[in-house]
Structures are given as C-alpha cells and as structure tokens.
C-alpha cells in the first residue's frame, strides 16, 4: 500500500508549475492537488486542498515565498510542510525562508528523481533534507556578531542533545536509533520532546537553532 502525498505548487511562472506538476504526477504515490501563481494566493488554495507539502518559489512579484511561508505556518494548524524552490543556491532569501519555518529547499536544476525524493523526505519528516547545504547556508547567513548563547535555557536532556547533534548531521530516526543502540520509537519520542522544548516546527528549524546558538559548531 502506498501512502498518497499531496502537493501544491507555487510559482509565478506557469511553465515551471506545469513542469513540476508533470514530474510529480508521473509518480504513483504523489499528486499535485493545487497551484498558485503568487504568494498571496497560497493560503486559500492550501485551505481548500489540504496538501502535505507545498513547493514554494522564493522570488515572486507580489508576496514572496518567505512571507507566504510565514502566512501558511502561522495561519494553519496542522500546517503543510514547505519546500522552498530557488534558482540559485546562494540566494539570500533561502535562509530567510528556512528561518521562517520552511522544511528545506530545492534548486530548480535538481534532477527530477531528487525532486521526488526531497518531497518524500519532507513529507515523512524522518530526516533532514540536505544537511550539508543547510550547514553552509547557516555559515554564510547566521548572525555572527552575537555571542553564541548555547541551548542551556531549553533544558534538553543529555540524550536529547545527542539526538540533536546527530540530527544536524542529517541522520534519520532509524539511523540515530542504530547509532545510539535504542529503539526507533524511543528516538521518535526524543525528537518530539526536543522539538517541543525548542519550540521548533521541524528538524530543519531545530538544526538552524542548534547552529545559530553555537550548540553545534559551524566550523
């Protein structure tokens, strides 16, 4: 039995939308349930179609992807996972979007198989998408002028700290379980607890917080 993953595609360019739609719809377990041509149209479309994942272009003329991501994540509960789509890797907006709560980002030049894999990863939320890219984005964009504050204030247990470190390296729940010789279900509980303590929406946000606080060194 395959779990259906529904997707909404947001891009101001209709040809990008139709291309992404064709790639996604070609997969038996994925389907595009809606499209939006601007950040301003996203919320109604998502309310109506309730997708698992939103593929969100960053740069759009009226309401850009960062604002639209904020709108979605603040306005809906449960909110869909947002996967930001960008033309260039060194786009300042990408990091802003991740801080705003997007679960990951995709380059438009990513091969179709990897686009599909990314959507599945984000929908399953079992592991971090492109851990290395997130680290280098944090390195380039994290504010450097403040003292690393650490994560003491969140009072993570030793086990949770260990799990967060492995999460930042991109390990999935199953991999973390193997590394720590614990059950997957235990890891899932740890992950849920540490996300709640950090007030993070998902792994991406938690890892960004870990980098920015200096808990996981960037270098």
């Amino acid at each position, binding site marked *: 039995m395959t779990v259906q993953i529904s997707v909404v595609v947001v891009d101001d360019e209709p040809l990008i939308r139709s291309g*992404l739609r*064709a790639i996604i719809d*070609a997969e038996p377990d994925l389907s595009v349930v809606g499209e939006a041509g601007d950040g301003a149209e996203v919320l109604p479309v998502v309310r109506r179609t309730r997708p698992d994942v939103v593929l969100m272009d960053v740069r759009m003329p009226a309401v850009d992807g960062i604002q639209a991501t904020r709108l979605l994540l603040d306005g809906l509960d449960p909110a869909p996972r947002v996967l930001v789509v960008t*033309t260039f890797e060194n786009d300042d907006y990408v990091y802003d979007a991740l*801080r705003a709560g997007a679960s990951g980002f995709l380059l438009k*030049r990513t091969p179709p198989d990897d686009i599909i894999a990314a959507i599945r990863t984000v929908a399953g939320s079992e592991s971090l998408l492109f851990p290395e890219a997130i680290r280098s984005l944090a390195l380039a*964009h994290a504010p450097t002028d403040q003292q690393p504050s650490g994560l003491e204030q969140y009072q993570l247990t030793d086990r949770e700290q260990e799990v967060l470190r492995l999460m930042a390296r991109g390990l999935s729940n199953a991999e973390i379980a193997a590394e720590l010789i614990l059950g997957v279900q235990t890891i899932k509980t740890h992950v849920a607890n540490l996300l709640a303590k950090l007030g993070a929406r998902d792994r991406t946000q938690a890892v960004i917080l870990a980098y920015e606080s200096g808990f996981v060194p960037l270098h």
Partner: protein
Amino acid sequence: MANVLVRGSTYLRWVYLLLGAALVLAFILVDSALVSLVQELGLPVVLTGILIAVVVVAPPVVLGGLPAVREVEGIAVESLLGVRFDEQPLGPARTWAQRRRTTTWFCLHLVAGGFVGVISTFVFGVGAVLLAAPFRSPGSHEVVPGIDYQVRGNWTDLWMPLASIVAIALVFVLSAAIGALLAYTAPRVLGPTPAERIELLERRTATLAERNRLARELHDSVGHALSLVTIQAAAARRVLATDPAFAETALAAMETSARAALADLDHVLGLLRDDRRPGSQTAPQATLGNLTRLVEATRAGGISVEVKRTGDLDELPAAVSREAYRIVQEGLTNAIRHAGRPADELTVDLSINLDKTGLLLELTNPVSGTSDHSGGGRGLAGIRERVAVLRGTVEAGLVADRWRLAVTLPVAVTTKG
C-alpha cells in the same frame, strides 16, 4: 629620540633621501658642464646669470614632468617613506596638473635629499677619521686638507670618537624629521587631489553598480530561462510515452525560453565587453535631487515615510549626493524587507542634514522580532565599503525597538578641487 634610531622607518626614509641626493649629484655633473659652456659664450653678466639659472633648473623640472616619474616616485614613496595613497597604485601622470604636482614633489625630493646627502657625506667622512683618532700617533693630523686636529695620546682624545658618534646619530635624527615631513606632505603634493579622488570613487562605484546590475540581469533572465528549460525537459522526458501532447508543448516552451535567454545573454555580454565606458549604457545615476520621487514610490507601497531635510542639498558634490541616494534607497529596501509586518503599519523616519561638518543621514524603522539580522546583509557591507572610500562613518544597529542606520559623509574634504 633614541626611539627614532631603533625604528626601521628612519633608515628607509634616509635611503629615500639619499636617492634624491644621488639624483642631485647627477644633475650637478650635467650642470657643471653646461655652466662652463655658457660662461665660454662670453655673454653679458645678466644674460649669463639667467642662462645658468635656466640650465640648472630646467633638467629637474623637465624630468619631473615625465608621466612615468609619478609612478616611480609613487612606488618609492610608498615603500621607503611608508605612505599609502588613496589611488592604488599611483599611476603615471595623465593630466598637466598631475605633471605639475609631480614636478613640485620631485624638486622637493631633490632639495631635501641633496641637503641630507651633503650633511651625511660630511658627517660620515669626518666621523670616520675622528673615530680612529685615539689609535693614531700623537701630533697634528688633517681631517680634510686645511683642517687639522690634534692627537695628544691620552684619554682626552676620546672626545673625538664620542663626538662623531653623537654627530652620526644626529644625522639620522635630522633625516627622520625631514623624512616625516616629506611623508606628511606626500599625499597632499604627490597623491590624488580631492577632485581626482572623487573621480576614482565614481569610476569604482560605477563599475560596482554595473557589475551588480549585470549579476541581477543574468539572474533574472538567463537563470530563470534555464530553470524553466531544465524543469520542462525533465517533465517532458517523464511523460513522453504517456502524454505526448504535453511533451510537445514542453518542447515549444523550451525553444522559446532558450531563444529569449540567448538574446538576453547577447545583451549582457555586450555590456561586459564594453568595459571602456563603465556605466555608459545605464541611465544617469540618481542623486538626492531624485529623493522626492524615491520617497513617493515607497509611499505608494503603503509605507509612511517621514522626511526631514536641512541644508542646501544642491550644493553637495555629485559623488556624495549619488552615494547618499543609494544609501537611502538601500535603507528603505531593508526597512521593507525586515519589517515583518504589513506595509501600511510601517513607518520609516528619514533625516538628512547638511552643515559645515558634513552630511548626516539617519534612517530608522521598526524591525520584527524574528528577522532582525543584526549582522546586516550584503547591502550594508556595500554601504560600508563605499562610505569608507568617501571617508565617512556608518553606524547600524537596534536602538530601542527600531533599527537605526546613521551615515556621515564629510563634505568639506570633497567639495574643493
């Protein structure tokens, strides 16, 4: 004073002065030949005097006016006097004003160098003789023909080596003082004038702006088109068998986008090749004179902008005015980007104040709790770089709950010339 003698710069500067002395020596050799020629002409005394003056002054003046001398003096002054010019590196003279200024500097170098050279030669010559005095047989000896000194053969002879050591030290102290004076004068006499500095700055900012514009253009046109082609091609390949109609539309879209991207690329490459006239193809850059339009455009987006203006902004030099406009533009963009709230709830305060001390720009705006990138973006780095060239200062940071950007640009320095 002892400090001066252990500093490396003292001896480098002395070397620079000795270079001047060596040139003086060369000119003296040429001059002495020419002067005796003039004297043999048997002209009236006054005329002979004038001719000799011309013969003595002309060679250094002509040589100093050669374009390459500015470059050579620039290297010597930077490496030996330890001066850093605003123009990096100092190029050959391009204008008559630069030639004139180089000649002035060259003559200063010769005069100062000649002076220190003569004193050095004398003190080292006599000093060497007197240092050896205690080792000579008692009696009368010659320092130079005509000047004698007495060796008594007891401890009283020690004054001679001591005096020569003190004298040699004094030569270096004197040369350090003259060198320091030259180092202080060099940027003013040999370096670029304020007008030339502005020109350099304008050229640099024009190149910078042009490069940014090209990057943006490539990003928007070619980057966009190639993404589109990539995605459409990927999609077409996936559905080729199942949906040939889609594949055909995709191919047509790819053809159109690729063709448009090529046209854009052609245009951008054309701009890149035409680097002899940086900024020549762009519209004239905006100055504070265009501020009203910028503010109105911002207000059209629903943001309220409070502007306070004091001083006659038309009097600003163009480079400063342009830079100020760019800063305001950047500041407004950042205010909108980091506001984290709807545009109609956003107020930006802008004050522009011009007085004798210079131009002060102050821009404050609210920032949201989540997006206050205290480090600032690339925009702020760009502002810092360009303001540094104009010798101004930048302050940016949170004051209470508002982001404040304050820039000062000295104007007195740049208005003249």
